[in-house]
């Protein structure tokens, strides 16, 4: 007979110990020089709530609720529903997300310091799991987690006073905590300082998270959560707003030139720290770590897992600005990429766009310089040999001519005529210097093939250099040999006529 035991089992599913959530140490920090001290939570109790309770406006990412605009503490009712749902994590790839409010990240909550927040957490009747919420903006053990443990088809309520201004992460803290977070259970709550935040033209909500699937990156179909790779901290995806492409293409964030943009950026983790960067912008201001103080002129700001930051910039120049985790393989191989598209007129004096697109020969120019200057020296001494000219010409040809005519002089079929074994050159060797100097436009026939394109004049080259190039060509690839002297080039330059297409 199996006697019933005294089964007073108390199990603490301490699968993850988040020491960072310890908020007992709330003494005011050492006062930074010349910076105002916000005096922390002790300054946050602005008295009892005034007026009728207010229902908080919640927004789905990437939108942010409007400023509270309040001047007195209020009682704010927040109603957030947990919904487990299958959604796309990448094109053709599905994943069962657990969400606060049906989106990843969860709904954005905006209150004011000193507000009394009455928090209702509902768990959808269609949920499989119990859930709860830990808001980093709560002063109290667990951040509300124990008070909000909610079974499917149930709702729970707890109330807290928002004592510290700042941007805070919230997340689920039900066992296994890491799995609930990895499935998308995080979001942001902004606790405005009493005076509010400086007015801007646009505000957006972006949150990074890492995701772990059994299948490989972009492997199609419904992908299950992979606990082993989550423990190893090797994500399949690193994403902004829960989906590859959530903020690109038609869904890119929008702004106009001349506007001030503020981003509220969180990092849900569960594992990775974000090196958040916007390509082509410099943050004028960063409220680093989502706190009270501002750093200015920042390129990349670190956002810890379970942390957030606000950043502001002024859009000067139109175009696409790319939001990335600058741990850059995550951006290009795991999806951590979003776009902010700025519309407006070009501002050329700030950013020109591409002005020059040319071949850069780098080290080749360095090494070839010697041959060219040696040749010039010999020419001045009247002792220039054909061999010196060929060496100098080879170096110059590599930098100037080989892009079109190719290093082997073969040209490109139907586009750029060959210089190798060229009947066109053999017929009149000196015309090489003429063509280099003046360019050649219009139809020509070389070795029986017709060409019709444009070669620009290369008259930036000196007479010496052009003579060297021509001599190199004459002594290469089966051409007849011989040399061109600088005097001949000087004569062509004096003629100053464009080389006409020869008549045949």
């Amino acid at each position: 007979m199996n006697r019933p035991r005294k089964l007073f089992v108390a199990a603490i599913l301490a699968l993850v110990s988040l020491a960072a959530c310890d908020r007992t140490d709330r003494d005011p920090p050492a006062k930074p020089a010349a910076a105002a001290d916000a005096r922390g939570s002790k300054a946050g109790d602005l008295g009892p709530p005034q007026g009728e309770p207010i229902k908080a406006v919640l927004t789905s990412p990437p939108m942010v609720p409007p400023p509270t605009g309040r001047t007195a503490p209020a009682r704010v009712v927040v109603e957030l529903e947990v919904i487990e749902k299958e959604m796309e994590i990448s094109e053709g790839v599905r994943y069962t997300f657990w969400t606060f409010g049906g989106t990843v990240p969860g709904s954005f909550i905006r209150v004011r310091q000193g507000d009394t927040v009455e928090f209702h957490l509902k768990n959808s009747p269609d949920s499989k799991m119990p859930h709860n919420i830990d808001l980093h903006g709560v002063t109290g053990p667990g951040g509300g987690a124990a008070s909000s443990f909610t079974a499917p088809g149930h709702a729970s309520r707890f109330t807290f006073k928002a004592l510290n201004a700042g941007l805070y992460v919230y997340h689920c803290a039900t066992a296994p905590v890491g799995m609930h977070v990895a499935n998308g259970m995080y979001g942001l709550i902004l606790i405005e300082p009493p005076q509010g935040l400086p007015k801007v033209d646009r505000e957006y909500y972006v949150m990074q998270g890492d995701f772990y699937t059994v299948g490989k990156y972009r492997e199609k179909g419904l992908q299950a959560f992979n606990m082993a790779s989550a423990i190893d901290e090797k994500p399949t995806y690193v994403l902004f707003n829960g989906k590859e492409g959530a903020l690109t293409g038609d869904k890119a964030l929008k702004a106009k030139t001349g506007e001030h943009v503020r981003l509220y950026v969180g990092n849900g983790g569960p594992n990775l720290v974000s090196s958040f960067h916007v390509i082509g912008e410099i943050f004028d201001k960063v409220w680093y770590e989502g706190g009270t103080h501002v750093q200015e002129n920042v390129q990349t700001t670190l956002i810890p897992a379970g942390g957030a930051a606000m950043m502001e910039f002024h859009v000067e120049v139109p175009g696409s600005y790319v939001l990335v985790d600058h741990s850059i393989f995550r951006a290009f191989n795991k999806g951590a990429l979003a776009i902010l598209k700025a519309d407006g007129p070009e501002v050329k004096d700030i950013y020109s766009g591409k002005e020059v697109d040319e071949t850069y020969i780098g080290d080749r120019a360095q090494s070839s310089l010697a041959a060219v200057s040696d040749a010039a020296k010999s020419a001045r001494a009247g002792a220039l040999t054909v061999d010196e000219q060929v060496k100098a010409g080879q170096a110059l040809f590599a930098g100037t001519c080989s892009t079109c005519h190719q290093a082997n002089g073969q040209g490109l079929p139907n586009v750029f005529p060959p210089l190798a074994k060229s009947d066109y050159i053999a017929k009149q060797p000196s015309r090489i210097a003429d063509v280099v100097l003046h360019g050649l436009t219009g139809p020509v026939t070389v070795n029986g093939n017709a060409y019709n394109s444009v070669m620009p004049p290369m008259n930036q080259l000196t007479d010496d250099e052009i003579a060297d190039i021509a001599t190199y060509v004459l002594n290469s690839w089966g051409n007849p040999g011989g040399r061109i002297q600088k005097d001949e080039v000087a004569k062509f330059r004096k003629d100053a006529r464009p080389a006409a297409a020869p008549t045949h």
Partner: protein
Amino acid sequence: MRAALLLACLAPLAALAAEPGYVRVPAGQFATVLAYEDAAGPQRVDAFEMMARPVSNADFQAFVRSHPQWRRDRVSPLLAGHGYLEHWATRDKPASGAQAGQPVTHVSWFAASAYCSAQGARLPRWIEWEYAAAADERRRDARRDPAWRERILAWYAEPATRPLPASGAGAPNAYGLRDLHGVVWEWTDDHASLLVSADNRDQGDPDKARFCGAGALSVADREQYAVLMRVALLSSLEAADSTSLLGFRCVKDVR
């Protein structure tokens, strides 16, 4: 001929309505993933008989018809709260034939207990349920096999809104029990004493003594998160609660 046809039509219904059979689970030593405060290490689990599959809607319909005090229009909200049998078409009829064969859900602990009592049975204790559910198709304790855990986790990854399969459609485990994993959660008799901390990160918290006035007990085996999620679900519920994915099966003591 007519009688034969009638029989043929009735046969599937009769199968559904039949009381699920019981399977004997022999006694054994078992190390639970929970750390019981009054027992360290493996403990003896006495032999018991367990229903081979979860109780179906048809099974529960037969019970409600013979015990009308458990109809949703009659039951006290203290014994079965909001949502009790709300998925049925009427107070004593499931929504469809397909639903009749599925495991019953939307049932409170009180209702599940009453059902088992009416069968001369009871709900399983947690350790009995865990003991029986540690098996896979071939082994009585497959918990060390990562594949066993992955299968359980895969079920967690499926949305709860997918239609349930018929009760007993799964493959039998080493004892001959079906659908212990992968279909529904199941009530246990002692669910109310599974005092899981609602905030699962407070290991080492001096306040843990609040649980039953004794040292709260940690999870003995952290690798068994798949099983622990089941404990977490049960601990989040009151006895009058029900959910769309929580059913039950009964056990009988072996004399």
